[in-house]
């Protein structure tokens, strides 16, 4: 009986220290057990914002292998824990509902997207690279050695990691592709 009565705020108003019912006496059980999702996260990972070149550091909170929060990292001498609207929207960027998670394929002259599994896609792309490379190979031009292909071009974004850029330049150059460009120029 006592506990049931205690659960009724009116009773707590009459017997407690908050008669007007505007504070301590009207708290619900859920309010008393409130905790932020950052406190219940499994781990925190330090990362860097993918948007502009200021390079603000971010803290990524993960719970059950899902990103639950991304906010500024106070340790950074550049951003001191702060973020801009885009950086603050990093969680939406990573968990966006319209983000693609499967390979999409459009056949030549096709009218809609089709599915394709990743390994087949990789294999098809490798074949096309070799086929185009063979068809457009130039040993020399104006009697000067060039050993290259002008048939394969690449336009890489500037949100690529240094390591990704490095493998791209290394592979493209070894394949003889020179028309390799990126957002740094446009």
């Amino acid at each position: 009986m006592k506990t049931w009565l205690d659960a009724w705020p009116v009773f707590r108003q009459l017997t407690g220290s908050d008669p007007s019912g505007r504070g301590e006496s009207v708290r619900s059980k859920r309010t008393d057990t409130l905790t932020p999702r950052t406190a219940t996260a499994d781990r925190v990972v330090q990362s860097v914002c993918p948007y502009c070149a200021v390079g603000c550091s971010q803290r990524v909170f993960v719970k059950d292998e899902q990103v639950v929060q991304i906010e500024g990292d106070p340790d950074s001498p550049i951003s001191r824990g702060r973020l801009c609207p885009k950086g603050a929207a990093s969680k939406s960027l990573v968990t966006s509902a319209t983000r693609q998670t499967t390979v999409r394929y459009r056949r030549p002259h096709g009218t809609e997207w089709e599915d394709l599994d990743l390994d087949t896609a990789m294999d098809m792309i490798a074949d096309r690279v070799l086929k185009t490379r063979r068809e457009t190979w130039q040993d020399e031009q104006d009697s000067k050695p060039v050993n290259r292909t002008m048939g394969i071009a690449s336009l890489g974004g500037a949100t690529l990691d240094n390591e990704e850029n490095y493998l791209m330049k290394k592979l493209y150059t070894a394949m003889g592709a020179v028309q390799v460009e990126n957002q740094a120029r446009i």
Partner: protein
Amino acid sequence: MTAGEAPEGSGVGVPGAGWRRADGPPAQDRERRRRGGGRRGGRGEIPMVDEAEFTSYYGRPVIKPPVWKTPDVPLYLFLGGAAGTSAVLGALAEGTRRPALARVAHLTAGGGALASVGFLIHDLGKPSRFLNMLRVLKTTSPLSVGSWILAPFSALTTATAGAHLLGWFPLLRRFTGVGAAVLGGPMTTYTAALLTNTAVPSWHEAHRELPFVFAGSAMAAGGGITMALTPLDEAGPARKVAAMGAAIELAAMHRVEHGHGLVSEPYRTGRAGKLLKAARGCTATGAGLALLAGRSRAAAVGSGALVTTGSVLTRFGIFDAGMASARDPKYTVEPQRARARERDTAGSGKAAVTGAGP
């Protein structure tokens, strides 16, 4: 120009000196094409006010118009008032051996109370949690106090009405009737505090008169309904109550419509103005007819209907006036700016809200 130096030639220290909104035509001096109609009941188009005499943020409301839905809340106000008066009429009729009047009054009270509770719950955003209304008893909240009035009142009146209909427990009926009557009084006027205890300018400024408007309107409604449904011989008191109610309602409403300067304007203009004009017409003619109602049943029914419709229209009118005064920033900003300027010039002890302006 090193930092820290006021730009030459500007040196004007008065706040807002010469600054005015940039030439680019802001949204408010032309009708803005808004996507889709208004939101919930009655909020509708953001009104475009010309900004000549006061400043606002692109014509947007300063406070939020009430989210209460029409017709739910005006009817809830009307029915609560009618039920309250009827309960009192019923108990007194019981006491003075007017069985027909008592029966009609108690049935009106019970039906009115139930309908009032129904509309209140229907207006809730989460109706399933209506019991939370009795979770606390807060004297700072008219709706909390009101719920603690409405709950027992509707229980008692439905019990009494049930007893009347089924003919059981005649003695118990007398006690529940009296109990309901006692709560009937506050039932008619707590709803006024519900409206006035908000930031809505036209309601808040009239917080001394609105309870009396609601009281009069409740008497007119309660009296009118019982008068119409009760045989002439027993309907005497109902007639008197209706007449008195109508008179009070008209008088108090006049004060509300004219007594508060700018914030009385919404009562006289727009839809609210039309509603209240009609209400005055109905109530006045209804009251006039009430004098003849003693002699002919048709006149009684006519007068009762008119007075009751007047009461309903008054509730809708007051509701709309409040909404209009909340949606238009002018009614919030100008009175407050005037009040602040008075206080600044008077240099009274209370520092101006706007802090130590230069």
